């Protein structure tokens, strides 16, 4: 069985700065995989490489066996990979409902359609309603996105990401800046939304990571120094040395 997402010897440098230096990673279908690492380790860059925002300097990214590195973001998205952003990246001048609807449209086959009234697209409405309900924003459907509280904006970010029904979902620090109760709700949502899907998540909150992930990879200075189950990672000496120890102390 081919892996859902497979990175082979991925490199990325900006001028002389080598940010990603030979990352190899394989995420199986249905797996929830977390990437952790200290600030500046290249986690966001890695996401940008996978999702097509940046072009890799060398190496390959494969989605379900198909080569996606070098493709444009929208092409990758259409092949079934969707991502969220660390800083909320929503359509601020639109309502919550319209935001989600934008995420739904393409997957329902309404490419660049200009001959249909968007209000009459029943399946789109139903799917939008479904997603809104799932993330718990249904009541706030007509609120302009810019007026949402921060945590709701983060939720909306996730909602747009999962709206298209992609099989592989990349979440970039979905709970950053949230309170405890908000984080708990977000984790529950992520668990629910990623059921039956492949999830790759970057997260700083170790609680979230160890709760959610089937497997964890540790990225330090552009290299994956360890991959394994949460228990293996917790027990890995190199990880402790390089990174986890300090973090764990901080958290405590």
């Amino acid at each position, binding site marked *: 069985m081919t892996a859902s997402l497979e990175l082979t010897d991925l490199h990325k440098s900006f001028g002389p700065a080598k940010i990603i230096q030979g990352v190899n990673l394989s995420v199986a279908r249905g797996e929830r995989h977390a990437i952790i690492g200290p600030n500046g380790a290249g986690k966001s860059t890695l996401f940008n490489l996978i999702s097509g925002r940046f072009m890799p300097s060398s190496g390959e990214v494969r989605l379900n066996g198909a080569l996606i590195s070098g493709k444009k973001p929208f092409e990758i998205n259409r092949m079934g990979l969707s991502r969220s952003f660390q800083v909320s990246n929503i359509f601020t001048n639109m309502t919550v409902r319209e935001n989600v609807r934008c995420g739904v449209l393409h997957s329902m086959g309404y490419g660049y359609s200009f001959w249909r009234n968007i*209000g009459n697209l029943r399946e789109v409405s139903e799917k939008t309603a479904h997603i809104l309900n799932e993330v718990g924003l249904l009541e706030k459907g007509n609120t302009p996105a810019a007026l949402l509280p921060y945590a709701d904006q983060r939720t909306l970010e996730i909602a747009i990401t999962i709206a298209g029904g992609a099989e592989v979902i990349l979440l970039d620090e979905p709970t950053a800046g949230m309170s405890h109760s908000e984080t708990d709700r977000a984790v529950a949502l992520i668990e629910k939304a990623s059921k039956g899907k492949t999830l790759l998540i970057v997260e700083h909150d170790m609680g979230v990571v160890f709760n959610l992930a089937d497997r964890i990879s540790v990225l330090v200075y552009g290299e994956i120094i360890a991959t394994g189950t949460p228990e293996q990672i917790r027990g890995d000496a190199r990880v402790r040395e390089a990174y986890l120890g300090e973090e764990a102390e901080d958290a405590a």
Partner: protein
Amino acid sequence: MTDMTATYAALEPTRAEKFRQRTVPLILFAVVLLVIPLFNPSRSMVTLLNHMGITIVFALSYNMLLGRAGLLSFGHAVYMGLGGYFAVHVMNWVAEGSGFWGAVPIFSMPAFGFGAGALAGAIIGWPSCRRSGTPFAMISLGVAELVAAAGFMFDSLFGGEMGISADRMGGPEFAGLSLGPVDEVYWFIAFWTFIGVLGTYAFTRTPLGKLSEATRDNPERVEFVGYNPQRVRYLVFIFAGAFAGMAGGMSAVQDEIFTPESLSLIPSGAILIATYVGGIRYFTGPIMGAIVMTYMGSNLSDYTVGWLLYLGLMFVGVVMFLPNGIAGIVYGTADTLRAGRLGEVWQSWLLRLAGLALIATSVITIVEVAFRWSEGYGEVFEPFGLHLGTDNPLTWALGVLPLVLGVVMVMKAAKGESK
């Protein structure tokens, strides 16, 4: 599950709301168009109304770019011009009346303009829409300069300086309109203006229309929900060109002539100003802008030689203080009234109105006196029997005191309102 659909259904506008918010305004617009002739407007008024109709469609097409897609173009007149030129050529083929063309009614010219505008948009938009923001604006400027220059170079297509004229009375009649007298042309313009308004409004309700707004707000995110923002812009650009071409087709029938300067930067700048002054955030903004600016462009010059200066002052004023334009004022006022807040704000409104009137008094005094002084015919500005020469201290008093007082009042009003 049914509970969820019910909640969602409650989010969507109800039938009655849709009817009230979308259908009623369109019906009202149609009624206004139908009722205008009952007032027996003079021929020059009808001519002006016809030009307003043309400008409305043109401005709406421009706002598809500026307001909806966030694309600032300095060359939109190119598409109206090319659409109009094509329509003028078609009119001449119709006049020759052989074969297929003999059966084409002049009434259908805007449809031909629509096609030609779309084609021009498709060709020129291909390279231009690969960028957005300032590069797009600069490309549109360069393209406009190039096309305008070509307009003077290829006489067989553009007729050189004198342009190409045609006769709107050729071809088979449609709906019993000979299109000879200008009041018959009114019905033609009214029909197509309505189609233009309907068409551009319908466009905002399509998936592509929504995506163009999404692309304006956040082109990056659009890419990550499966759309190519360049493609979105390109398609919107083609539609904007098409509706501009339609306005060109209307203009071809109304004026029966097209000249190369209709491709130049001047009409492009004028439509930018009209649209912006009207208000680019609202669908109806460009309509208001088109009506106001067409009227002022043709009639303000009857009252004062300084009309360009007034127009410039108004534009700068709108950019600085009213980014939502005329429509912003109209809807803002309506919202306040509907919310029943008139009681709270009437004092600051009154103060602001009085302040603006005072500022206007000073500005008009200064401009009028300055223009008369500049011309040097010894003419004197004499409003209400006052003799305002440059040596009259009253002139200076009127030029300065109301201005200062007015500014203070407006600032106080603004402070009062923000409280």
